[in-house]
């Protein structure tokens, strides 16, 4: 046959031409749904409007439970975003602000479309309102400031609007503005710039470029909104006009880092214009500024306030890093130190945003402090550098890696870095490395560590040694994450020695704990228990008994104790830790995650005792917590999913086992290669016992392929793989192969000296199957 004839048709060719793109382009927001159609519990009444990827309908409750009409927005589905969206939708649903239109309900349709039911608001768009009422510039600024306050509130909860424009701000009959569409723009946003829906004229440069969006993108859009409002109002004149122009220029600077760092700063300048004070950038030249700092009580207070904010936060976080409430954080700080109390008092006087202390979150306080850093401390580089590190450290503790990196990204920060001492440089590079790690940018994290090492090259003394230990631990952690365990352990050993010499207790704890975790994974529980007991003592000494480090170390210890069949100690350890964790008042999501980890540890202890039903119960509870609080793409659900899959498999509840093994595989895609091998092997075993040898074979091949490219240290992984091969051969009646594989499994088990109960049970089951020559479940 003419080979060209065959070349005319390629695999997937129909999906690769311009036709598919066109088809997709034409469909956009999709068909308009007729009146009477149902979306979730809502019945559509009429179309209110359409745009880009969405239609907005007037809708009412379909179940007649109660009478309620809403604006129902249907956004054409985007499967990739849906997890993030659900997460964001939850936050939006929790927003309660007089100037933000609340989200009533939300969900997705079978087609994958997302819907949002919002309170129905009467009103006109803000620019039309300004024109209709002929507002002057003062009234415009006040109205606009109210909008800013609403945006500030949402930013404080980690939400970015992404589509601020006059049309999304309605003003009601009483003159009150209300913000629409919070948390919805994300649904309409897309990873690809070409088909992303942007409001023409109101997109920030980084949105147009398809880059990552931050709160500063909203600040840009706020600037454009203000510009539009001022254009609709009679022009201001003289100095006010100049100041407004400069305020707008700062808000809408092309480079995000040149804009106002937070809405708070924008509002300060709005207030300055309204009360005819100079803008922040004019208030003083650095030299005069420093003199005034010493002269004037209020300004001195700001420096103290910065220090206080940071100190309060550090103390509070050290006491309990996961505490949710600022009130409690303050209380901790007050108890902890009289100096702190003094500074807290100063803080509440100096910081108008913390007037009543309790309604500013640690994050907001940090943003405030960060926004002040360069402007207020231009002439005090030592203090500024120290604070930069402290604030960055607090961000890191709050898992705000991006914010922390931003703190070190500006030109002022670069200048600090260039002029700082080698020790400071090393500390900031280590901090940056950890931020990259939080953001799962491992290569970047490694680079920063190398740079930190270089910075320390000529340094001696205990502080430099402590930092070297820090770097060694972090390098070990990165290697562990890549499953390069032997290399990691060598680094931990070096770190331990250095940490002990330089009395760096925190590093000693971290190295001990991570080293122990690796030993545990490799099955060396005797050694692991020794190290973990030491790590637990160190953690309590450094952080206190209810700190997450102490709690999770206890969880790990329990697991190893259980593997050594020291059941009572194991259960006691994990139960004590659980009780301690649950006794914490005002737990944040982070504390819930710790509880989930402990429950997972408890599940593990139960599993090893063969208490499978109890194990499923605990692991199920852990999983429920992760599903509630975990970040998108998080791999945390892997352990409990895999645990349930294993227990269900042992109970021969193959359906449940499959579901959870599939979930585990999903989690493993972003996580550990060994986890992926385990999940695939479990799926193969389930398929083999479900009389589906083809699927079993496919899974097993994938597991083999993954095994071939992964450094696996746990010998039971190999033993289990051999057993599953044997199982599949036995199920397909190939007794010869089955025997060979079984013998390999036996050798592996004998060689490793590790033969836990589940492995024994599976081995006996497979051996029986081969002996009787008949497949069985």
């Amino acid at each position: 046959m003419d080979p060209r004839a065959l070349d005319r048709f390629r695999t997937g060719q129909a999906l690769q031409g311009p036709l598919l793109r066109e088809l997709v382009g034409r469909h956009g927001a999709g068909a308009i749904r007729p009146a009477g159609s149902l979306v979730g519990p809502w019945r559509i009444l009429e179309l209110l409007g359409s745009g880009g990827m969405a239609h907005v309908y007037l809708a009412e409750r379909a179940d007649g439970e109660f009478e309620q009409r809403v604006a129902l927005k249907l956004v054409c589905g985007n499967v990739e975003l849906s997890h993030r969206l659900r997460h964001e939708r939850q936050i939006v649903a929790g927003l309660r602000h007089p100037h933000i239109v609340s989200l009533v309900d939300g969900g997705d349709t079978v087609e994958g479309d997302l819907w949002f039911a919002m309170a129905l608001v009467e009103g006109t768009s803000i620019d039309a309102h300004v024109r209709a009422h002929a507002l002057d510039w003062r009234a415009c600024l006040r109205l606009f400031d109210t909008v800013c306050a609403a945006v500030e509130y949402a930013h404080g909860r980690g939400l970015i609007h992404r589509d601020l424009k006059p049309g999304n701000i309605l003003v009601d009959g009483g003159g009150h503005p209300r913000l629409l569409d919070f948390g919805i723009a994300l649904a309409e946003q897309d990873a690809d710039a070409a088909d992303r829906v942007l409001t023409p004229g109101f997109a920030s440069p980084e949105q147009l470029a398809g880059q990552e969006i931050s709160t500063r993108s909203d600040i840009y859009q706020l600037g454009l909104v203000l510009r539009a409002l001022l254009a609709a109002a009679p022009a201001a004149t003289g100095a006010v006009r100049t100041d407004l122009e400069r305020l707008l220029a700062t808000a809408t600077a092309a480079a995000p880092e040149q804009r106002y760092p937070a809405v708070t700063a924008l509002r300060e300048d709005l207030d300055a214009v309204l009360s005819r004070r100079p803008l922040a950038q004019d208030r003083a030249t650095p030299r005069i500024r420093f003199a005034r700092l010493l002269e004037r009580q209020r300004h001195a207070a700001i420096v103290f306030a910065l220090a206080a904010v940071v100190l309060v936060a550090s103390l509070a976080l050290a006491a309990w890093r996961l505490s949710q409430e600022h009130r409690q954080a303050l209380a901790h700080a007050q108890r902890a130190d009289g100096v702190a109390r003094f500074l807290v008092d100063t803080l509440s006087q100096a910081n108008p945003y913390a007037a009543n202390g309790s309604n500013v979150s640690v994050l907001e306080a940090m943003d405030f402090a960060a926004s002040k850093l360069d402007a207020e401390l231009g002439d005090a580089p030592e203090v500024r550098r120290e604070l930069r590190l402290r604030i960055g450290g607090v961000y890191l503790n709050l898992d705000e890696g991006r914010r922390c990196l931003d703190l070190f990204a500006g030109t002022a920060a670069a200048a600090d870095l260039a002029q700082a001492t080698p020790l400071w440089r090393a500390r900031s590079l280590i901090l940056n490395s950890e931020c990259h790690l939080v953001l799962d940018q491992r290569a970047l994290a490694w680079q920063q560590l190398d740079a930190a090492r270089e910075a320390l090259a000529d340094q001696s003394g205990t502080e430099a040694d402590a930092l070297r230990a820090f770097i060694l631990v972090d390098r070990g952690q990165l290697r562990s994450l890549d499953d390069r365990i032997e290399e990691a352990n060598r680094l931990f050993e070096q770190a331990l020695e250095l940490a002990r010499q330089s009395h760096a207790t925190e590093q000693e704890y971290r190295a001990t704990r991570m080293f122990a975790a690796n030993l545990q994974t490799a099955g060396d529980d005797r050694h692991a228990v020794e190290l973990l007991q030491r790590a637990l003592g160190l953690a309590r000494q450094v952080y206190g008994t209810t700190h997450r480090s102490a709690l999770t170390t206890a969880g790990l210890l329990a697991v190893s104790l259980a593997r050594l069949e020291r059941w009572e100690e194991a259960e006691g350890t994990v139960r004590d830790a659980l009780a301690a964790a649950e006794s914490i008042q005002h737990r944040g999501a982070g504390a819930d995650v710790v509880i989930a980890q402990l429950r997972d540890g408890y599940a593990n202890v139960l599993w090893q005792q063969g208490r499978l039903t109890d194990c499923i119960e605990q692991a199920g509870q852990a999983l429920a917590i992760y599903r509630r609080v975990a970040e998108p793409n998080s791999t945390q659900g892997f352990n409990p999913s895999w645990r349930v899959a294993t227990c269900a498999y042992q109970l021969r509840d193959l359906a449940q086992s499959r579901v959870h093994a599939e979930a585990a595989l999903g989690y493993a895609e972003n996580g550990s290669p060994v986890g992926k091998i385990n999940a695939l092997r479990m799926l193969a075993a389930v398929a083999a016992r479900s009389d589906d040898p083809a699927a079993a074979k496919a899974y097993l091949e994938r597991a083999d392929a993954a095994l071939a490219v992964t450094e696996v240290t746990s010998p039971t992984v190999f033993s289990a793989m051999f057993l599953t091969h044997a199982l599949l051969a036995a199920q397909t009646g190939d007794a010869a192969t089955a025997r060979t594989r079984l013998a390999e499994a036996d050798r592996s088990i004998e060689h490793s000296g590790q033969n836990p109960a589940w492995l024994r049970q599976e081995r006996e089951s497979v051996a029986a199957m081969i002996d009787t020559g008949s497949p069985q479940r």
Partner: protein
Amino acid sequence: MSEATQDFARLLDACRRGDADASARLVRLVYGDLRRLARAQRGQVAAPATLNTTSLVHECYLRIAGSSVGSVASRHHFFNLASRVMRQVLCDYARQRLAEKRGGGQVRVTESVLDAEGHAEASDLVEIDNLLVGLEREHERAARVFECRYFAGLGEQETADVLGVSLRTAQREWNLARGWLAERLAG
């Protein structure tokens, strides 16, 4: 067969009987996946097309059927259906596009290169779709293999799994279908 798969199958049947609403609903069901395909394509992703499309079909299945249901058999059935759906959706659109051109609703002064390419592709697809009806009569299995590979981008092993034939057969029928179509395709 799961409920969702049945729904899918019913829609496909209605579509083939010329039900325009069903066709629109079918597109809506796979729209998100189509969009991502289009995007991957525009991004000139280096990964082979089969990899992308197969994993997409998998995700489409999980989304529509739900992750908790479905034996392997019903999964294969779904992929089998999906390849027909892709053919239906693309060929329907190709016909619609050609009709618009002929009907001359609005006359465009300039025609971009892309537009011309789209036109050529649309004519090809319609012709292939028509020829496939003939191939279905003579060699039904070859026509099914062609659908799986050409319209759904499934690889040879997946195609074999989905249709329940051996790898060798899937390879042979793919060559047969291509040769058969090339002989008859104009141009």
